[in-house]
């Protein structure tokens, strides 16, 4: 009469045919991808050089995804909602940053070099700060106007509001600043201590051009092309993310954030000002997005009101990939996605036109098979 008790442990077969089917289909897909990739490697269509180049290219893009992803992750961790408008917060940073750097790049009436040319590092830092500030202001405003009144509303309501806010911001910028594409000025930054005698740069000569320089790096008999900028973006991102991690883990505000994430009611009973902490959460996420935006625009010097969409969706994918609500996860997820995106098309031999399909597929697959991400979702350690 008593049936076996271990029946349902493996993939819960039988109980849920859909789940079983999905796992089988997912397995088949994975197998197919592996076979194709190995086939391409074996046939010499894809080699170490391509892989390394892919990693290098994915590094900077991935760092930017990671920075944006942190915004999604923080807000999700604390409020359990996806801030759809985060991509527009990112866009706003890049846009306002553009006006700043454009002002810095004006040649003074007296002639001579512009502020940007004279104090490149300072000007760039100021631009980043302007971008961060702009993003923060937008994020705080939209939390106050759109999200706070709906904190107790059903999820669907706040979700639709977030979508509405996203469209509104995008269109507001479009109507205010016009739909034309704007271009960040080209900035050169020569770094004398590092000399690259065999590869002369047009502006810096033998000194390394940190922002615009392109350098060939031999890999066996082939070579890859590397820009110091990739590593600068990566380094800045790493510093910012570490700071963020430190704030969340070690400071009082961070502790309060984690308490609010755990249980808003209890946190407020403990004397934590929940509203304030939520504002801080939005603020932190937006600051990172603003920094990411300016770096993104230096790296791909082009801003439009619609520029937030792709990085936004991809950063969200990165956040989910690493486990939403999980800060180190977001960093790793961002880098991983950047690399997957630049390496996968070549490895699988599909046209890079379908590059975005790869990213979206990663999103869909992760959602289906491991919604908690690679590293598990948690801003706080314990969550039932």
């Amino acid at each position, binding site marked *: 009469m008593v049936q076996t008790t271990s029946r349902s442990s493996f993939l819960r077969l039988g109980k849920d045919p*859909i789940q079983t*089917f*999905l796992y089988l289909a997912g397995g088949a897909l994975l197998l197919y991808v592996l076979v194709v990739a190995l086939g391409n490697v074996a046939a010499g269509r894809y080699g170490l050089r391509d892989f390394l180049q892919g990693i290098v290219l994915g590094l900077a893009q991935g760092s930017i995804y990671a920075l944006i992803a942190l915004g999604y992750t923080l807000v999700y961790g604390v409020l359990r*909602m*996806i801030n759809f408008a985060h991509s527009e917060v990112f866009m706003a940073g890049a846009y306002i940053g553009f*006006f700043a750097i454009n002002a810095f790049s004006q040649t003074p009436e007296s002639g001579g070099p512009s502020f940007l040319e004279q104090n490149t590092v300072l000007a760039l830092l100021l631009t980043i700060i302007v971008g961060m500030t702009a993003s923060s202001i937008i994020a705080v405003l939209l939390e106050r106007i*759109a999200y706070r*009144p*709906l904190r107790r*509303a059903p*999820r*669907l*309501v*706040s*979700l*639709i*509001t977030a*979508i*509405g*806010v*996203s*469209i*509104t*911001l*995008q*269109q*507001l910028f*479009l*109507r*205010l*600043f*016009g*739909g*034309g594409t704007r271009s960040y000025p080209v900035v050169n930054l020569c770094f004398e201590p590092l000399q690259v005698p065999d590869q002369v740069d047009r502006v810096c000569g033998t000194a390394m051009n940190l922002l615009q320089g392109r350098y060939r790096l031999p890999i066996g008999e082939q070579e890859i092309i590397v820009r110091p900028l990739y590593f600068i973006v990566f380094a800045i991102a790493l510093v910012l993310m570490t700071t963020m991690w430190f704030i969340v883990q070690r400071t009082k505000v961070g502790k309060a954030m984690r308490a609010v994430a755990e249980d808003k009611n209890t946190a407020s009973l403990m004397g934590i000002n929940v509203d304030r902490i939520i504002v801080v959460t939005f603020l932190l996420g937006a600051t990172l997005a603003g920094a990411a935006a300016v770096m993104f625009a230096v790296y791909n010097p082009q801003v439009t009101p619609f520029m937030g969409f792709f990085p936004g*969706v991809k950063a*969200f994918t990165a956040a989910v990939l690493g486990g939403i609500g999980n800060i180190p996860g977001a960093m790793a997820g961002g880098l991983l996605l950047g690399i997957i995106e630049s390496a996968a098309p070549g490895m699988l031999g*599909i*046209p890079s*036109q*379908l590059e*975005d*399909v790869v990213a*979206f*597929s990663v*999103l*869909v697959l992760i*959602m*289906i098979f491991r*919604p908690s991400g690679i590293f598990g979702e948690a801003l706080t350690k314990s969550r039932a």
Partner: protein
Amino acid sequence: MIGKNTLRNAAYVGVVAILLAFMDVYSSFGEKDVIADFFTLSQLLFYATLFTGGVVAARSVTGRGLGVSVLNGMVGGALVAAILALVVAFVDAVPFEGIRFVFANFSPLEGSALMQGQADALPAMILLVVIGAVVGGIAGFIAQLPLRIQNTLFGTVAAVVIIGVLQGQINRIVTLGDALAISLTFFVAYMAVKALGFKSNLELLLTGAGVGVASAILFGVAASMTGMERDTLLRGSQQLEPILLMLPVVGDLLSLLVFGGVFVLFGLYGAVATTLGRQMHDAGWYFMAVTLALGVLASARALDVPLALVIFVIFGLTFAIVPTLSVRATAIYESLPRPARTVNRRVFFVVVLVILLVVPPFMGASLANTLNLVMIYIIMGVGMNVMIGYAGLLDLGYVASFAIGAYTAGILTAPSILTCPGVVDQADAFNLLRGYEDTVLGLQQVCPGLMTFWQAWPIAIFVSGLTGMMLGVPVMRLRGDYLAIVTLGFGEILQRILISSTFKPLFGGPQGVGRIPVPTLGDIELARSTEVYYLFLLVVALGAVVVLRLASSRLGRAWRALRDDEDVAEAMGINTTVAKLLAFGVSSAFSGMGGALFGASLQGIFPNSFTLLVSINVLSLVILGGMGGIPGVFIGAFVLVGMPEILRELRDYRLLAFGVLLVVTMLMRPDGLLPPQPPKLSEQSTAHKQAAAGD
């Protein structure tokens, strides 16, 4: 005296006004007349801003008397105006190129509503503040009026403004003579029934028909005597005449019948309207008011001040008296026995149907095209409503099934890889280059599509429904945000695949699928927008019926149950997996049905028609109209799709308005404009019917 929040609230309006100013709305519509030689759209927006400032300020001090309200209104209006004056000062002081560099849409202040006709900044600024105070004061005064008067006033002004803004598109729909004839017939029939105190169906119908016949004769004679046939004879019957003559019936007699029939119809409606439910009753009055207004508009080249006043009076009277009449009509209606009510309702529906059927020749191709677009969105909205309104699932990749329907029908009906592989994908560019013109010219003959539209349509519906279900399988366990973003991913993936070169032989890549034949009925090609209209109408009607039936069925209840509480729904014996899959399937099938029609009416499909924006549009209209109700979808589609299509000047602002509307709707009125009413099921129970019959 000045309320605590007055200044703060007015300042919020001021901030919005700054944004609007730099978006250039106060200048860029300077040439768009609302009322000729009197009021442009820019001025309208300008005054509306000040007025809003006044209202917001006055509302900050409710319940403290008229004087305080007016004063606060003045302060609010003046503050908003002062903020705008600062904008003027700023623009005056800063080099124009600099402003233009940042605010790319900004145009010079000359001719802007902000200058109020002044040449210099300072007088304009002073004038602005004065105007602001006056407008704000008026706003403060109006805010103190009884709510009903306020509503009437706003409704009337809104009606005049809408007619003024749309005048270019709607000024030839109906002539003044026709409008008078129709609305008088309705009015007389209505009043006759009221005066004579009739209640029974027979009496109503006889009165209506009698008034109709009488006015047909009257207007017919009057028209022929004054020799104004072209103006006063119903244009519809004129247009119908040549066709009806072809029928094997005595032509003259029949056209006379049609002519009389229109009058009888409106006479009947007028008579029956005295005893109808509120919405059905009011619809008649509003329809007549709009017809009359359109007739007035058609009597001149443009809406000028006297005409605007006439229209103002028409709507003012209508809005003022209809609520009272409506209450009485509804009361009589409710007191009637069920069968009598049914008869009245049927008469109403027949009238509506006839109006819908004969309206395209009056509208013309352009409005019909707009209406077709609205109807496509209604079909999609009805489908999305199944997902979001009933089942509570947010699908941002809704456009995918629309595309699947369009492509399936397109590939099946057009020359494609299915019927002549290797020809179609090369015909366009390569063969032409080599001079094979015949291949292109005769492609449709050489290589016809696999089947006709009527055969392909069900297949398209089936395929999109099925793929919808299949896409539903993997996301079965996801809810809310996650579902939204994964479905968004599906939509994007599909669009990339449609565009990609990899699948070009099948989907045509960026060139899409061309040369889709139009649907035919016998020998008639449904090619023009006024013809496809009927197809759309049929589909919308069927779609609405199907969804209404589903909603009140076992499945519909299951959907709504799982929307409210999925776990409990499951514990009630509902197989939530099946219910969700059916929701995916049904909504996708609707979307695919619309998609197939979309492709056929365009006679070609391009992948860039299927972007995320389509999903957002559909979502917005469902949300605005009210989730879970069919009438809401209609309203939403008319407001969000129809209006911007007609208001081409404002189209650039359409998406901005969508975004703001989504947020505001969610903040202020999460149930939308027309939220669904809970069904009165107990009245349908046998016990209730027996009790009612026993009375």
